[in-house]
């Protein structure tokens, strides 16, 4: 099965950036999320982040809030997240779970790491867990052989970047701008500089997320980062589609456009 390491190695061998797609479990339905994420892989995503729907997504913009709200209304639970990971992992991508900290904390961190590994998940991205609080989670993840990805932001001074990078395995997530998730007209101007500053502190791949939604933006980011992360734009396609089949088609088209983008 593909790991984060092999996914990035493959992209590097192809002389391109990796494409990372995000979708919450349970959106638009439990099965619909598996179908959409699988389509994203088939059309070119190397890595998939499965979002764990949470009631208080305070770093997400309206698009992801909307999707997560629907997923929770569908009765999506952590077992469904694990099932989604398992199904999507079969498609050949490296699959991560992106989640706020409280659901892991409540589920039991050790149990979560074990269940995720058993489902074929390769790691987690935890946007509200900072180095000061991350120690125990990093140890449990290492024991379960899953990666831990944390975020740096344009506001991060060098010593924070160092502290965050020291906790990361797999890759470092660079937030392109100060703000919440959501597609934007342009990628933050601070992103390139942040990637350069992050590289000074780590040999891990550095991926850029927040605000990326088009092939042209993916190409731009692929010019300086190891990976391009896209979430809200995929969700937008599904939200705007009149039915599931056209939603899947739109998601596939976007993934293909982005996959062409990361190839420059």
């Amino acid at each position, binding site marked *: 099965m593909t790991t984060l390491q092999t996914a990035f190695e493959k992209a590097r061998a192809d002389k391109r950036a990796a494409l990372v797609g995000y979708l919450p479990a349970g959106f638009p339905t439990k099965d619909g999320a598996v179908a959409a994420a699988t389509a994203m892989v088939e059309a070119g995503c190397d890595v998939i982040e499965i979002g764990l729907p949470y009631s208080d997504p305070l770093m997400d913009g309206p698009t992801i809030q909307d999707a997560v709200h629907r997923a929770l209304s569908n009765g999506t639970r952590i077992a469904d997240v694990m099932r989604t990971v398992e199904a999507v992992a079969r498609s050949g991508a490296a699959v991560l779970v992106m989640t706020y900290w409280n*659901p892991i904390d409540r589920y039991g961190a050790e149990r979560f790491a074990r269940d995720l590994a058993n489902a074929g998940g390769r790691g987690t991205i935890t946007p*509200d867990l900072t180095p000061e609080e991350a120690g125990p989670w990093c140890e449990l993840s290492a024991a379960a052989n899953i990666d831990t990805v944390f975020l740096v932001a344009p506001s991060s001074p060098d010593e924070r970047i160092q502290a965050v990078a020291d906790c990361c395995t797999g890759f470092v997530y660079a937030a392109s701008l100060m703000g919440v998730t959501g597609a934007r007209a342009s990628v933050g101007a601070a992103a390139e500089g942040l990637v350069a500053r992050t590289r000074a502190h780590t040999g891990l791949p550095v991926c850029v997320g927040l605000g990326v939604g088009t092939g042209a933006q993916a190409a731009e980011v692929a010019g300086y980062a190891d990976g391009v992360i896209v979430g809200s734009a995929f969700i937008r396609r599904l939200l705007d589609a009149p039915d599931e089949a056209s939603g899947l088609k739109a998601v596939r088209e976007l993934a293909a456009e982005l996959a062409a983008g990361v190839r420059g």
Partner: protein
Amino acid sequence: MTIAEGTLITAAGLAGNGPAGDDPDARGRFGVFGGRFVPEALIPALDEVAKVYAEAKSDPAFLAEFDHLLRTYAGRPTTLTDVRRFSERAGGARVILKREDLTHTGAHKINNVLGQALLTKRLGKTRVIAETGAGQHGVATATACALLGLECVIYMGEVDCERQSLNVARMKLLGASVVPVGNGSRTLKDAINEAFRDWVTNVETTHYLFGTVAGPHPFPEIVRDFARIIGVEARRQMLELTGRLPDAVAAAVGGGSNAIGIFHAFLGDQDVALHGYEAAGHGVDSGEHALTLTEGSIGVLHGSRTYVLQDDEGQTIESHSISAGLDYPGVGPEHAWLKDTGRATYHGVTDDEAMEAFSLLARTEGIIPAIESAHALAGTLKLGRELGPEATILVNLSGRGDKDMGTAMKYFDL
């Protein structure tokens, strides 16, 4: 530094002068509670607030300015009122109110707000955002921003905008923009989410003027320090009025700022019992309540490890209370710590019990309390009957009830 005669705020009055260990550790922890669970993007801003606050609290010029505003603008010190007729219904125990309802803008929230508004200036920021439930924190924030010439944006759940519409109008009149929040439970918790989203986007120009002792470090410490004047004054006034300390101190607990504000100066007085009253809404068994400390479990909400109303997978359970200011599924981490150490005790008061106490205080004393404060009064009626006529109970009357007339008209069919 010499303290001018009659000065309210001293350096010792801002920093905790209670027993050792009542300030959070370097990570912002009270025992296992507190800390910071926020996007990395906000960490530098929180560090900056903590650093600037640490300098400010030992800067005589800052303390003098805060003192001056509390005295000449907020109307401090607030008086104590011995409520003899109300006491008859509390088993004859002597009930004494600390009258935060008499402050400018009508609730204890003004104390924290003036402190943090001065801090905003010191941070060099020009824009202030805040969440509000009952609207009292929003009104206080809009007021301080008008006074100090700061731009002000208030996030408020749609449900709360409706039940506290008078306060929405007040904020607008004071020049603030009020943004109704229509997602989630459309109450305080969602207003906080939205304020955090604004903050992470606009942090360069903006201070998040957090309204209670919850949230990521250093907010629980800063808000407490600015609110603890309530207890510092009350402790001295109780000694003057009764010659001794009270047997118990009672306060309502939403996020916990008015309760910490009055408890904190008494933490070292082991003979003074501390009682916090949460909103039991329609009752514990109804599932419609805000009993975070008494029924919740330990988790992370809004950047802090504390007691939370949550399901078995960590999803926040929506709270319910007739009082917007107590309608919150989290609570400040210092209260979680005071509960676990046994220093304070927390109880529930239902909507009906609170409304009965609300009307009782109005009819026996001519004081219309905020419905939030009415929870502390209802708790005091029970506590007084337990403690008996020898006991003295100090109650934080955290606010006045003007804002609650719409709710009262509906509830009592007035």
